[in-house]
């Protein structure tokens, strides 16, 4: 009998799949309706509606990278493989959301600035953040099942977290020379624009939680299968 990992993290992930899936289906519909009904921005026009998805995607990416660091720290401290599974799963889901930040940003820029990209401090640091965790995933895929590499990746994942505050406060660091709009919050949005933004943030975070829970499940099954292959007599690995 092959044992599927059953740590508190694995049990928590399995328990999260259904409620987050239902919540996501309900919230996504409400969010899209709120975006469609939101008033048009007097300066940017309809292109401003991209901002109900672009910053929320960044919040989910930040959550992914924060959990990568947290999982890595607990893995180094406790040596429990479940924390490494959490770190790896969170990095993969975080990179997905960060990729979407890097894609949706230029679409807004093209419609507003008239060009896809500018080597602005915020944009450059976002690209750096994406590369840092993309490199984390490459490292993990090249060193599958290697305990030492997992420890190195944990340290790398924690160090990479330093890019997040740098990214968030890039506009302050640029001292007013950044082309990027200021960090969006409900308080600095126009009338009727707060709800679609808040719902967008909630939808992206629930989608993140749902995908993370499913990714942890996959990681546990892969681990069980790898353990079975390692225990199988030579020549019967695929039987």
């Amino acid at each position, binding site marked *: 009998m*092959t044992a599927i990992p059953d740590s508190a993290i694995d049990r928590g992930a399995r328990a999260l799949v259904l409620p987050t899936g239902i919540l996501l289906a309900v919230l996504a519909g409400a969010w899209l309706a709120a975006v469609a009904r939101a008033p048009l921005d007097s300066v940017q026009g309809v292109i401003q509606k991209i901002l109900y998805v672009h910053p929320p995607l960044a919040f989910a990416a930040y959550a992914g990278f924060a959990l990568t660091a947290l999982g890595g720290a607990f893995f180094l401290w406790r040596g429990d493989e479940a924390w490494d599974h959490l770190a790896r799963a969170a990095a993969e889901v975080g990179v997905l959301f960060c990729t979407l930040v890097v*894609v949706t940003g230029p*679409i*807004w820029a093209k419609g507003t600035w008239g060009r896809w990209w500018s080597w602005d401090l915020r944009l450059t640091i976002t690209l750096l953040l994406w590369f840092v965790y993309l490199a984390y995933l490459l490292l993990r895929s090249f060193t599958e099942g290697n305990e030492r590499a997992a420890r190195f990746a944990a340290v790398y994942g924690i160090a990479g977290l330093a890019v997040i505050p740098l990214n968030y406060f890039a506009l302050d660091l640029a001292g007013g020379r950044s082309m990027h709009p200021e960090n969006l919050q409900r308080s600095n949005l126009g009338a009727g624009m707060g709800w679609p933004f808040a719902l967008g943030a909630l939808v992206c975070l629930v*989608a993140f939680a749902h995908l993370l829970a*499913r*990714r942890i*499940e996959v990681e546990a099954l892969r681990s*069980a299968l790898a353990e079975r292959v390692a225990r199988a007599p030579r020549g019967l690995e695929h039987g």
Partner: protein
Amino acid sequence: MGYVIAAYAIAIGAVGLYFAHLVRERGRLRRDLDRGER
């Protein structure tokens, strides 16, 4: 309007594709594990 639709379609489409990949991968791994138990 085209840019807005493209941004939402890419974001929702990518999340949907990744979701489908995870569901399929889970099914494949489950089948592999079950086959090994028999």
